[in-house]
């Protein structure tokens, strides 16, 4: 493909991506930043974990994304008795009185599965987490004596952070497979809150989603355009050094002069960001640059995805883990402030 053709193709895709973002924003108000991050994840081919209180619009957001993205959409509710096989096949007695085995939610749509939403993933058992890990990592699953592939699959999961009973904390290895963890909050803008409360169009979610244009993005082509984006957007030597410094600062923040009040910085970090984590961060930053109409990455691109791609990959020592929610934001902000580029 010639350079000009590639640029034209990238520009066309960028217009589609921005149209997709605008369309999803019609159904979900006050969540511009999460919508942008999901858009980045779609083109960086990364899976997304959503976290937020009950009723803040996580499911509506994902349904809107699935509708505008096109392809097949499946949703599974995490429960304590859910077993891995429940994702793969479904056994029952059919109308003829004979046992029948049907494909489960993962296999039902074959290769066309585009969005798989695992609701309340921390209610499911670790065995289910393991299967989900494989699907996320390999876009494939073994069933009925053969491999099934899902080239367009993107997994979205939702973790309930309110209730802790009968839940299984997702292991760090599983969390590391998610490109991003997004925190969904109720909009702070009083006007948006008023609209959510009093505008009838937000009361009937099904009808609201029906108004969205389906299949704005040709989902089958996304796996082809994603690597083009990664190859077209460059990271200069200065930028690479900056990203490396950020990575190192997540591992040894004290070396970069990062100080948090009431925290022994030498004992804070149990494990910093993984290589896979910072690789995903750079993939997301490249997509962010492309969405901004640039063919090179700047530090602000990294800043825009730094928390979402890194926060769940930094692990604190147990003495500080209980204060994680407050400390992780402080730590990442301090790292951004202390590490300079150029």
């Amino acid at each position: 493909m010639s350079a000009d053709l590639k640029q034209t193709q990238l520009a066309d895709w960028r217009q589609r991506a921005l149209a997709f973002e605008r369309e999803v924003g019609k159904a979900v108000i006050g969540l511009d930043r999460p919508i942008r991050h999901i858009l980045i994840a779609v083109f960086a081919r990364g899976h997304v974990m959503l976290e937020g209180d009950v009723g803040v619009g996580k499911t509506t957001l994902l349904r809107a994304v699935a509708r505008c993205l096109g392809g097949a959409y499946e949703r599974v509710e995490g429960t304590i008795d859910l077993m891995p096989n429940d994702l793969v096949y479904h056994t029952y007695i059919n109308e003829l009185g004979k046992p029948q085995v049907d494909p489960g939610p993962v296999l039902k749509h074959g290769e066309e599965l585009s969005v798989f939403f695992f609701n309340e993933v921390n209610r499911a058992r670790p065995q289910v987490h393991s299967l989900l890990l494989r699907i996320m990592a390999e876009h494939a699953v073994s069933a009925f004596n053969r491999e099934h592939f899902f080239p367009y699959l993107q997994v979205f999961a939702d973790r309930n952070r309110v209730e802790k009973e009968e839940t299984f904390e997702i292991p760090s290895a599983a969390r590391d497979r998610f490109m991003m963890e997004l925190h969904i909050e109720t909009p702070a803008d009083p006007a948006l809150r008023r609209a959510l409360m009093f505008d009838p169009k937000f009361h009937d979610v099904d009808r609201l989603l029906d108004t969205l244009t389906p299949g704005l993005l040709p989902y089958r082509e996304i796996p082809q355009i994603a690597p083009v984006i990664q190859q077209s957007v460059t990271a200069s030597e200065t930028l690479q050094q900056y990203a490396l410094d950020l990575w190192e600062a997540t591992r040894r923040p004290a070396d970069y002069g990062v100080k948090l009040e009431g925290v022994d910085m030498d004992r804070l970090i149990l494990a910093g960001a993984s290589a896979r984590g910072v690789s995903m961060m750079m993939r997301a930053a490249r997509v962010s640059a492309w969405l901004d109409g640039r063919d090179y990455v700047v530090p602000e691109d990294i800043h825009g995805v730094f928390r979402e791609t890194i926060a769940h990959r930094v692990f604190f020592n147990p003495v500080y883990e209980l204060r994680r929610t407050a400390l992780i934001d402080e730590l990442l902000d301090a790292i951004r402030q202390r590490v300079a580029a150029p």
Partner: protein
Amino acid sequence: MRKFALPLAIILSVAVALLMNANDGTAPARFESQDDHAATHTMGDLILRDIVVSTGPGVHIDPASLPAPGAINDWAEIRKVETDSTDEQTRVRITYQVFYGVRGPETAELPPMRLRFEGGGGSPDVEAPALPVSVMPLIPPGIPDEKVAIRALRPAEPRTYSPYPQWLALGLGAFGAGLVYLLWMRGLLPPFAGPLPFRRACRDLQRLADQPSRDRAACLLLHRALNETAGEAVFGNRLEAFLERHPEFAGIREELVEFFALSREMFFAEAADGDAYARCLKLARRARRLERKSS
């Protein structure tokens, strides 16, 4: 008969002396005054009089015979009466004060007094004679009261001045330190440039003038000055926040926006800009002026 005459006379004289002593109800005493008789007194003066009586063991003064403090006549009063007894003697110290104002020299006397002693087989009394005292006026004769210049009777008490030089030294030291700090903050102490990042940036930029590849280094110096001023890394998208915290640089907002665009092109888009050094130097000089005004 003649040979007995001298001893008999001695015996008789001793007996007479003993009989006379036995009949005399006074004890041996001496009287001392703290001022000599030539001294004159004016109103307010204190006169000390000691009556020292030789006594034996077990003899003590009857407190009832001591004079009571208070006025004793029209011109004097007793301020204080103190006693001090040992086995050999008893000292009675009486402090009088003159409160009589006279127009000319006068002579008065402190009245006599009788002190009684108890114990030791007898009760001998001590008669202290009257004590003449010369009293002088406070003001010279012939001068009306309204024309009298009040004079101190005594020179002013000497006062120690030792704390004042210390306080003066401390004050001068604090003032000097403050002055040095002010000069340092304003960059007027060349050996100690102080917290003036753009001043240092200008100096370092001038050193780059003859360097072949100076554009990137110039941008780096400006970035470092901005970061040092802000106390954190400043990026293009945080420029407004920086200007909110440092409104002194609001006057070069446009230049700063241009600088970040230039830096982005140079460091991240890897574009060449041959004019970067001159632009950085100009911006640094403007920033230095604003920095100096605000410091």
